[in-house]
């Protein structure tokens, strides 16, 4: 029997996560022992994230491709890229958090708790084994629940309660599905499980387990009809936490779904799983867009529109059918980057214009162009990207996804998807341009001019996202080629 030892070289492979772990311990202790100010803890958290980011970039450049813990954790180019995207998103969220007045009971935890949550998300990306996946998922969920529940207003606790119960039930369903797969194969590793599953013998049991797994991950992504919690929880959280939920948690869950589908589900029941996902995506696209039309509470609006974007992010997976090729992965990553940029930017805009103690409402943008013209310009860039108008990252992201859906999927399925995306985009103009209308065409709103404070961190995040969206729109080819180059050998091998 081999002895299990964790060597130092293994820790190097897991460097991004290790840095986060070290960082969170140091920061928590510093918060306890030193009378440090709120901002300094926030900046410390930002430094930790940057360290992890640097580690991930180094791994990407060195083309690290290794597994540790008997293959339970894998670091390859694709997961490094995903981690970089998640880390960038988390940096944006932290920037928003530092720039937002504190509305919670906590002081330092408001920043340090993002780190374990992010660690869960990153482990989820690299995990190739169900136990690791489960622990990572719960690490992400529980840390997020605490972040939500720390809001001083009672709605925060209400939202946390809802997420605990519904998240717990979905975890139970996930585990129940996994337990049957374990019962059929006796292993929890993706690859071994995929090779041992026998569709001939226990077809219906495996299929039911697959559906349970897909459905419970769909709860985490908030696909319709498993979406209802996302609206309430999004509205109950403070702005930066809502941003974290809608960007980092959602992306991590989508990556998990991709990984599970490609490694375990598709080799055995590609047709069934693709059909299930197809139904979920179509329903989500329709319901999310229609639902968003009437939302004026900004956090609800973005929770709902996030559902539509998440559905879009699953389209390349459905289109590819069995095994996504380099193109599908590239398109997915491009839209993921675009999604991070525009959503983080949108939440930064909400945070910048928001008066403490109220629920963010679309009226807070009223007449913004007269109070803060440059902020308004940046917000317009982000809204263009969200609505998918040229020239922006969102436009090309949608364009690539549409073309992929049409070219990969023959027959009606591709056309239905494309039609739904296009119609949804048209509907989305109506609700996204409500923000632009408020900014340009309404007299100054109830918010006094001084409320747009010079919050440098949030401003930087806003401008970074706005310029990033425009730059990606101006030179989409550059990023596409870079991404394709980076992940080519991972996917082929």
């Amino acid at each position, binding site marked *: 029997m081999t002895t299990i030892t964790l060597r130092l070289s293994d820790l190097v492979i897991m460097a991004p996560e290790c840095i986060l772990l070290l960082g969170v311990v140091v920061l928590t202790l510093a918060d306890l022992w030193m009378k440090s100010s709120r901002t300094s803890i926030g900046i410390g958290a930002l430094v930790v994230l940057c360290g992890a980011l640097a580690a991930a970039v180094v791994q990407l450049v060195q083309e690290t491709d290794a597994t540790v813990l008997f293959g339970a954790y894998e670091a390859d180019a694709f997961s490094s890229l995903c981690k970089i995207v998640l880390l960038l998103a988390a940096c944006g969220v932290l920037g928003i958090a530092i720039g937002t007045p504190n509305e919670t009971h906590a002081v330092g935890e408001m920043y340090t708790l993002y780190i374990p949550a992010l660690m869960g998300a990153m482990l989820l990306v690299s995990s190739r084994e169900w136990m690791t996946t489960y622990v990572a998922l719960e690490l992400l969920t529980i840390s997020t629940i605490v972040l939500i529940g720390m809001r001083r207003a009672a709605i925060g606790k209400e939202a946390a*309660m*809802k997420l605990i*119960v*519904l998240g717990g*039930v*979905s975890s139970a*369903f996930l585990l129940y599905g996994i337990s049957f797969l374990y019962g059929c194969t006796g292993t929890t590793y993706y690859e071994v499980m995929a090779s041992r599953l026998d569709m001939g013998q226990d*077809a*219906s049991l495996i*299929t039911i387990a697959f*559906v349970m797994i*897909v*459905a419970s991950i769909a*709860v985490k992504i908030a696909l319709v*009809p*498993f979406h*209802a*919690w996302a609206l*309430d929880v999004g509205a109950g959280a403070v702005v930066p936490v809502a941003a974290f939920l809608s960007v980092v948690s959602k992306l991590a869950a989508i990556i998990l779904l991709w990984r599970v589908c490609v490694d375990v589900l598709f080799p055995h029941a590609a*047709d*069934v799983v693709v*059909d*299930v996902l197809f*139904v*979920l995506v179509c329903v989500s696209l329709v*319901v999310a867009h*229609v*639902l*968003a*039309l*009437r*939302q004026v509470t900004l956090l609800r609006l973005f929770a709902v529109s996030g559902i539509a974007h998440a559905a879009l992010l699953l389209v390349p997976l459905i289109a590819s059918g069995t095994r996504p090729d380099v193109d599908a992965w590239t398109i997915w990553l491009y839209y993921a980057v675009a999604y991070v940029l525009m959503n983080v930017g949108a939440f930064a805009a909400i945070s910048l214009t928001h008066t403490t103690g109220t629920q963010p409402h679309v009226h807070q943008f009223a007449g913004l162009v007269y109070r803060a*013209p440059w902020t308004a310009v940046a917000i317009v860039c982000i809204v263009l990207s969200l609505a998918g*108008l*040229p*020239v922006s990252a969102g436009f*090309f992201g949608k364009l*690539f996804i549409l*073309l992929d859906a*049409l*070219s990969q999927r023959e027959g009606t399925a591709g056309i239905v998807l*494309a039609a739904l995306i*296009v*119609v949804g*985009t*048209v*509907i989305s*103009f*109506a609700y996204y*341009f409500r923000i632009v*209308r408020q900014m*340009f*065409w309404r*007299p100054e709103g109830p918010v006094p001019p001084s409320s747009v404070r010079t919050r440098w961190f949030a401003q930087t995040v806003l401008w970074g996202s706005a310029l990033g969206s425009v730059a990606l729109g101006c*030179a*989409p*080819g*550059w990023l*596409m*080629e870079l991404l394709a180059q980076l992940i080519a050998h991972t996917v082929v091998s």
Partner: protein
Amino acid sequence: MDFVASAWMVPMLSLLAFGVVIMIGERGKAWTPIGSTIVSGVAAIFACCVWVQQWQERSSYTWAEWRWLTMGDWPVQFGYEVQSLTACMLVIVTMIGALVQLYALSYMRDDGRKTTFFAYISLFTCSMCGLVLSPNLLQLFIFWELVGLCSFLLIGFWFTKPAAREAARKAFLLTRIGDVGLLIGLFVLYHAMPNNSLALIDVHNAVQNGVIPEHTVTLVALLLFFGAMGKSGQVPLHTWLPDAMEGPTPISALIHAATMVAAGVFLVSRTYDVFLASSTALLIVAIIGAVTAVLGAVAALVQRDLKRILAYSTVSQLGLMMCTLGMGTQAALIAALLHLLTHACFKALLFLAAGRVIHTVHQQDIEELGGVRNVLPWTTGAFAIGALALAGMVPLSGFWSKEALFAVLLQGGAVWVTTALCVSALTAMYMTRAFVRVFLGTLRQKNVRASRDIPMGVPLGALAVGAIAIGWPPMFARLGAQLGEGYPHTPAWLVATSLGVVVMGIAVAAYVVRPRVIVASTRARQPSRKKVVPQRRFSGTGARVASILRVAVWDWVYRNGVVRPFQAFSRGMAQLDQTLVRACTEGIGTCTVLIGKLASRAHVGQLHVYGIWSLWGIVALLCFVLWKKV
């Protein structure tokens, strides 16, 4: 200097003006509008040089080196293409753009957001030039969206007026519906093209060689035309165009009369090979164009707002161009484009003249106007030239382009040319009505004073000269020759008929719509607001006695036999337009919002309800999967 090869300078100049004006902002409101106007003037002169050089060398020049991104196998290369059509369009866009900016210097003088206005116009001119110069359909689509955005911003420029906000929203959504059709068309084309290329030249070759199957070509043509319908205000997507008149009048002249709304016709012309390959698509284009032409003309006849009359007239004329394009010959292309050019010129003239009237009298309801001739004699002349050109009176430019249209339509069939002649008669009628009501008669408003206004006068003069000069036969024939071979020749009888129809239209309208002269004794009798064509009034006691017989017999017959039924018909058509067509286009939006409301209400916030939804979701998925398996 090789002007053709450096045509990229034209949009770049406008972009530069936009950038500088927006950067300086309100601080430079004394001089940035003037600077912007000068830059646009330079751009216009540059465009003229491009045009002249293209004319002399008859060369087309394409530069598409900047590789932007790779879509499938096709490297999307951005660049520009100069050929006869784009050169002409470039001149029209920049010329009218420059004149409108000059005009706006005076028109918008007291507006608080003057610099924003000039920045938007510069951005629009830049995007429109980009659209015109695009060598491939993807680049064209991007600029297509940009001009739509500018149009949206400028219609809603006076956003404190609720009507302007509503109009902008409507224009945005309705044109977006068309744009989505266009986008789908591009996808289908991208899919169908052998090398996934959307470059216009590749599309041309592919369709000519018959690589693309017949039904796909039809589908692509119809979808492209759907996009053009949204932009060019074809029935049933036209309702936004009359409402767009809530924007400032210079904008109506530039965007909603001369350039942007013509982009639909331009698109069809640029992709004419696709249409030529599908007879079904051509027929649909012709039918929709004809319906639009008639409906627009009839609606223009019963409008009271001067700008709305002109807007419906634009709808009608664009319909005429589309109808001509539907004939599917090379001559049809040339005729439609010639009409596009002349129409841009005289319609901009009409709008600017109308703007001058509105700016001076502060009234745009033609039933409340009258006698403007006495205050603005030169503007009256300019409007008259524009109106006669629009009606198609010899020897103005409109006459020649309409003759070309008639010749093509005659080849297409008797029904088309008859429709076009009817539209021509109606055009003469509504323009006469507008002219008589606005300029003749007695001025009702008091204290109206018009000062000499050079920034407003120069564009009017220049466009009036243009409306006459383009019609100068050698000039016109050469223009036709520049656009391509096969300039259509009209038989003499048709020329005579069309002129007769125009004269008859003017005469009938002049007979029915008399100038409203308010004599001191009858001043108390204000005209009834409800009557669209009011009672005739006679001045002087002598005339009154002499006309008793006429009033009793002839007028009765005339009114009840001709005017009333015709009015009823016009009103009916206008009503149809108002209710049915609007209900169709706007009902969809309302329904969606309603469903959204219901869906939103369903989220009651209860944990149990959400849990049960999720449970049902899983059960439904399981049933679906098991059903699939079995």
